[in-house]
C-alpha cells in the first residue's frame, strides 16, 4: 500500500516536472489562413526549456507559419498551445504583450524600423519593457559591439548592408535576454565567419537558459551545433519518427561545443 502510494506520488512528480520543463507545448495544432487549406496540421510536440532546436524542411513546408505561432503573430485555428507553462489558445489579447516580451524574434526580412538608427532599433525592446535611458545605453552599445556594429550605431537601416541589417535584427532580438529565441534564417545574409559568430551568440544565450529555435536551410550551421535537436516539417506536418519531440530529452551540455 505504502509502495503504491509512493509510486503514484513519484509518477505525479515526474508528470509535473515534465510540464515544468516544457517551454512550448503543441497539442493537435492546425493553422489555416482564411478559408484556404491547412498549412500546418496535427502538430504535437514539446520544446524543452533550455533546448536548442533547428527547424528544417523544404520551402513551403510551413516553417515560417510555425514560427509565427511561436512568436504569437498568429493564433492556431485548432488545437492547443502552451507557452511558458500557460495556455495560450484562449488567452486574452491584452495578455499577449507580456508573453511577447519573453520572446526574441529574428525575422527573415529583418523588420527594422527604417527611420530609426541601429541603436534605437536595438534599444526598442528595452524601452518597450519600460527601461530608463540609463539602463539602455550600456547594454545596447555592448550588443552592437558584439555583432560588430559598434561604429554603425547611428546608421539607419537603408544605409546598412543586408548582413549589417541582419546583425542589428539579431541584436534587437536578444537584447532583452529572452527566454525563447525564434530566428527565421538568421544567417541567410551574412558570410560564413559572421554566421559562426552569430551561432556562437545563440549558443551563449542558450547556455544562459534561453531556448533557441532556428529555422534554417544551412546544413553547415546544424552540423556545427552538436547537441541541438532537429525539427523537420514536411507539407505542414512534423516528421518525428523517433518520438523525441514528444518527450524531449534534457538538452546536452554544452550545446555547440564543436
Amino acid at each position, binding site marked *: 500500500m505504502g509502495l503504491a502510494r509512493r509510486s503514484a506520488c513519484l509518477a505525479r512528480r515526474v508528470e509535473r516536472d515534465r510540464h515544468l520543463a516544457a517551454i512550448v507545448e503543441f497539442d493537435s495544432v492546425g493553422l489555416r489562413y482564411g478559408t484556404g487549406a491547412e498549412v500546418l496540421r496535427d502538430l504535437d510536440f514539446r520544446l524543452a526549456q533550455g533546448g536548442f532546436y533547428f527547424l528544417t524542411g523544404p520551402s513551403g513546408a510551413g516553417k515560417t507559419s510555425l514560427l509565427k505561432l511561436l*512568436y*504569437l*503573430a*498568429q*493564433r492556431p485555428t485548432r488545437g492547443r498551445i502552451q507557452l511558458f507553462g500557460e495556455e495560450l489558445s484562449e488567452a486574452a*489579447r*491584452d495578455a*499577449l*504583450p*507580456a*508573453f*511577447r*516580451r519573453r520572446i526574441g*524574434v529574428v525575422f527573415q526580412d529583418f*523588420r*527594422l*524600423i527604417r*527611420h*530609426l538608427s541601429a541603436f*534605437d532599433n536595438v*534599444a*526598442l*525592446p528595452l*524601452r*518597450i*519593457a519600460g527601461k530608463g*535611458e540609463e539602463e*539602455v545605453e550600456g547594454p545596447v552599445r555592448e550588443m552592437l559591439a558584439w555583432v560588430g556594429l559598434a561604429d554603425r550605431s547611428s546608421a539607419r537601416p537603408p544605409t546598412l548592408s543586408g548582413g549589417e541589417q541582419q546583425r542589428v535584427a539579431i541584436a*534587437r532580438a536578444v537584447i532583452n535576454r529572452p527566454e525563447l529565441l525564434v530566428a527565421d534564417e538568421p544567417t541567410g545574409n551574412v558570410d560564413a565567419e559572421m554566421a559562426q559568430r552569430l551561432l556562437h551568440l545563440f549558443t551563449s544565450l542558450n547556455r544562459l537558459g534561453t531556448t533557441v529555435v532556428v529555422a534554417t536551410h544551412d546544413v553547415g550551421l546544424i552540423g556545427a551545433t552538436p547537441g541541438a535537436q532537429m525539427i523537420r516539417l514536411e507539407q505542414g506536418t512534423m516528421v518525428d519518427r523517433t518520438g523525441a519531440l514528444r518527450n524531449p530529452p534534457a538538452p546536452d551540455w554544452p550545446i555547440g561545443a564543436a
Partner: protein
Amino acid sequence: MLGWLFVAPSERRVLGSEGARRPTPWVIAIMSFSMVIVAAAGLALAHSASMISASAASRYSVQVPGGAGRLAAIERVLRSDPSVTNVEPVSESEMRKTLGRWLGPAASSRDLPVPALVNFDLREGADPTRLSGRVAAVAPGASIAAHRESLAPLLRSLRALQWLALGLVVLMTVAAASAVVLAARGALDTHRFTIDVMHGIGATDLQITHLFQRRIAIDALAGSFAGAAAAALVLLALIAGARFAGELTGGAGLDPSDALVLLLLPLALTLIATFVGRAAVLSTLRSAL
C-alpha cells in the same frame, strides 16, 4: 496631467517625421475659426434677446384710436398711479412722422385720424388691468397692450437663431472630430509596419496609442488655437471697425465674460479631438492580433 504631452525624445523618434506636413491642423484650424465666429454671433444674439426681453418686460402702451386730443388726460392718469414708473407720451407729430415711412406725404393730412399713444413702464408685479378702467374713464375705447406680446415673434426668432448657432458649433465639433478620426486611421496605415514591429516585440496597445495620442493632441491644440486666434482678430476688427455686433443684433455686443467662453471653445475642441483620436487609434489597434 499633461505628462502625455512630454514624452522622451527616443519615444518621439519612433514615429519618425513621416506625414509631418499633414493637413489635420489646418482642418481643425478652419473648424475652430468657424466655431468661434458662429459662437460669437450666437452670444451676441443671446445678449440682444436678453436686452429686448428685459426692456419689453415692463413696457406697455395705451392706444386710443383717433384720440390724439386726449393724450394729456391719459398722461395725467398714468402719472398719478403709483405702480407706473415711467411715462412717455408719443406726440401727434411724432406719430405722423412714423406713419410717413409707410404712407408718405398722406401721413401729414389732417383727414387721417392719428391714435393717441402713451408708452409707460409698470413696477414689477403690478397689474395692468387695474389701470385699464381708469384710462377708459378719461379715454373711452382705449386699450393697453404689453410690448412683450408684440415682440414675442422677434424674440422667438432670436432664440431660434441662438439654437441654430449652438447646433452649428456642435456640427463643426463633430466634423473636426471626424477629420481627426480619419487622420488617425491614415496615420495608423502610414505607420502600420512600425506598429507591427512594436506589437511583435511586446508593445501594448496603450504604449502605441500614447505615441499617436501625443501627436493628435499637438495637432488639435495647434489647429484649435490658431483658428481661434484668427477668429479673435476678425471679431476685434468687426467690433471695433464695422460695429459688427451692433449691426447684427441691434445694439448688443459681446461682454468680457464672453471672451472666456470663446477661449474655452478651442480648448474643448482640443480635448474632444484628442479623446476621439485616441479612441479611434485604440479601437483600430484592438482589431489586430
